[in-house]
């Protein structure tokens, strides 16, 4: 792995983590996208010899094709999950006009318990 690649992965992962810490689902989704890209780059860098074609049987060196297959699969899965999350964010927005991730519902129920019992 080259230094540039390592720095890029680090920056992507750090900014992704920062965004995921937010309450707004849209930002979390953006953060997850960045994190996903960081992970995908990491997979790609796990194969050696960048710059060579991934074909066996040619003259000279070739790149390990497995990480490329893995990264393709991971990208597709990430795409699907993020589309689903976007749909959820949209749904949350149509329900109550914002897409904030709410408090832990269990805690809130427990806090509300006395009211529940009196009614």
């Amino acid at each position: 792995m080259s230094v540039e690649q390592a720095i890029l992965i680090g920056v992507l992962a750090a900014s992704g983590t920062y965004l995921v810490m937010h309450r707004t689902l849209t930002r979390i989704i953006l953060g997850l996208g960045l994190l996903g890209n960081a992970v995908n780059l990491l997979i790609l860098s796990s194969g050696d010899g960048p710059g060579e074609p991934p074909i066996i049987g040619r003259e000279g060196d070739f790149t390990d094709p497995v990480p490329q297959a893995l990264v393709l699969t991971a990208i597709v899965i990430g795409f699907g999950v993020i589309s689903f999350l976007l749909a959820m964010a949209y749904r949350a927005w149509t329900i109550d006009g914002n897409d904030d991730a709410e408090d832990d519902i269990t805690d809130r129920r427990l806090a509300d318990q006395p009211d529940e019992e009196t009614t």
Partner: protein
Amino acid sequence: MSSLLPLLIAMPLLGAALSLAFIRSRPVQRVISLTCAGATTAISIALLIDVDRNGTEVSSLGGWRSDIAINLVADRFATLMLTISSTMLLAVLVYAMGQRTDDERSRFYHPAYLALIGGVCGAFLAGDLFNLFVWFEVLLIASYVLLTLEGTDGQIRSGTTYVVLNVIESFVLVTGVALIFAATGTLNMAMLPERLAELPDGVRLGLNLLLLIAFGLKAAVFPLYSWLPDSYPAAPSPVSAVFAGLLTKIGVYAIIRTQTLLFPDTNRELLLVIAGLTMVVGVVGAIAQSDMKRILSFHIVSQIGYMIMGVALGGVAAISATIFYMVHHIPVKTSLFLVEGIVEKEAGTSSLSKVSGLARRSGPLAALFLIPAFSLAGLPPFSGFLGKLAVVTEGIDQESWWIVAVALAVSLMTLISMLKIWTGAFWGAPSPTPVPQSVGAAAADDAGDDGEGDGVLRNHGLMAAVTTGVVTLTLAIAVFAGPLYRFCERAAIDATDLRAYAEAVLP
């Protein structure tokens, strides 16, 4: 027989596609789902018998050499889990159909459910780490859809936590898989043990921890459990029944697989502490709750602790105890949630402060609850006692006294919180039949036979029949514990014997 392995995955997934094509016709969707789920169960049982007789079956997809192919590996451990899971999936499917109006309402229920079946089968059969991740994703995405099926406010809220946490878990898992590939050059679980053994201890520990964090979140072990009690209760009852019974156990399955196969010589002291904390935190959480679904959800966490305890103790005997525990736990937990579904349907809520006196209205329903509840707590004649006995005996053999003490104390506390449900929902004077908020039809039905004892079960015939079937299965596990336990021992040998696994996969 090995040619049947890809069918276990392909059939439910094709069924899901077909089910989407017939999205306008509920009866066709039902037939497709029943056929696929039934056939999956049948194939699993046939495989179970075959694998027990002839040893591990391997299917290398696409006819590639098995060291570079995508392998599906069915040993005794995998087929046992497959059989019990597909049986539960089939049972819950029938139960969901018996609900008449409720959750099956969404046209996407059947396709998502079939995709879930395919993902579960794939996760059990995966022969390499990356495909384990892929099948995990398949079942997770199906579970996202099932959890947020109705798109109500509550479901979206708890679904957000569930989806975001699981996506992050996937990233951790992929990172682990990528680093393992970078370090060893393979992901094939038959070749990994040898190559991992050559790595320096520190690197191996790091890789192991990455996998443990990822699967630990899936299994809801101690620091990573908080999403579970928050999200499962929001799902419709049949969905949460199958989640509660299966999904966390697939996490445990993956932990067992990776711990026994890839990292057999790790020091598991930390895991043992985590197991203890998982048990305690889960049961304490359960005692604090006042909603049936929530109590049961916290118990999942607590019970996972026992399984992790078995893994942490290590060795063939402890692993076989864990496998037996899992086999017992899946139907018990499922049946508790199925009973909860009937209660919720009947009373319109699962809040213990609003339901009462169900025992007087329906004795059989009370019995259906009590049997798995006692089993969960580990009272003697039931399967839970045998499972706990096996795990605890192993703890005593290995002289880990404190974990034994914790396990026994938690078992007592489990009983206390089960009694809380019992006194809350089943004991006492019957509350006047409240009008169920969600279903008008059921209310109209039982207004007629309010005075009769078993109106509750007769109103929900199919649901009650399925629940009775699953409860009978838990009793059967207790009755046939001897042969089953011997099978679990053979499964544990399969799971821990690295050389046999490698020989079966790589001819």
